[in-house]
């Protein structure tokens, strides 16, 4: 089962990477207001059930991928059809 976890800075935190990227894009004359950069983990899990996958994904966020002090995350489970497209 494939889960996709996005880890991003919580609202209110300043994102230097987003800021520099926004400025670079503006410099290249793109009509950009602002940019936020986050990380996306596409993880192949050895589990069968969707609920279980979500539970494990949450655990992974808490234990390693995100720091709840500054990060928030969202979890998505890919259905079979989407796998080919995304992986």
């Amino acid at each position, binding site marked *: 089962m494939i889960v996709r976890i996005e880890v991003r800075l919580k609202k209110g935190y300043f994102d*230097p*990477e987003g800021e*520099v*990227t926004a400025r*670079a894009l503006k*410099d*290249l004359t793109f009509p950009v207001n602002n940019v936020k*950069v986050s990380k996306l983990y596409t993880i192949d899990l050895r589990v069968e059930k969707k609920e279980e996958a979500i539970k494990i994904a949450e655990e992974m966020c808490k234990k390693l991928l995100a720091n709840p002090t500054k990060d928030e995350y969202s979890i998505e489970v890919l259905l079979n059809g989407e796998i080919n497209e995304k992986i």
Partner: protein
Amino acid sequence: MRACIARVGGTNCDLEMKIVLEEYKIKAEIVHMKRLIKEGLRGYDILVFPGGFSYGDYVRAGAIWGKEILAKMRREIEEFIESNKLIIGICNGFQVLVEAGVLPDDGISEVPKAVLATNISAKYECRWIYLRVEDNGEVLRVPIGHGEGRFMPSSNEILMDLIKNRCIIFRYAKPSGELANGEYPYNPNGSIYDIAGICNKKRNIFGMMPHPERAFFGWQMPDNRGKKYGDGKKIFDMILGGIIESHSMEKN
């Protein structure tokens, strides 16, 4: 002879580069990109993109600066190359040249033909490595310091061209001079074909991940510190040799 050491926010190996060029009696100036865009490259014989973390290395190492050059100085750079002047990119500077499409190529390619990808170890690595100079088989010790140095051409043909045209100038090796053959840590980042540095066909654009400017003087080397010069000097002799010669000929 005048050299321009270009910089933007996040550049940081400019000073040591200046010291090295001055050893060759080259007048070296450190110039901010803003000024360069305004004033152009006229009057310079050498253009250096030094190491560092230009624009914080956000997006990809060297990408933002590389694309800025493409967008704002493309003609200037093309003319510079066409008139046989010298461009050197070291570490982040090499990444910039690749992202700008300046290397590997002979002009500027619309789409980059290679990339310096994240090291296989996924870590920043600072270590002294052994380089084999492909021209003469000499083995030199110089340090590297980078997290994205895995050279990957975008196709096999590009690699073949590089080989055929003898554009691969430095490769990672073992102390014996035998090639690293991808073996860590001799090849510190997993570069294809142990590539550490390349040039263009005309041999006036050079890019490399290792830092010869940190191994220029004997005292900078890990051992044999009593000698006046270190192994990095040989690399600069080789790169600067051509232009210094042609320059003094012009003058005569």
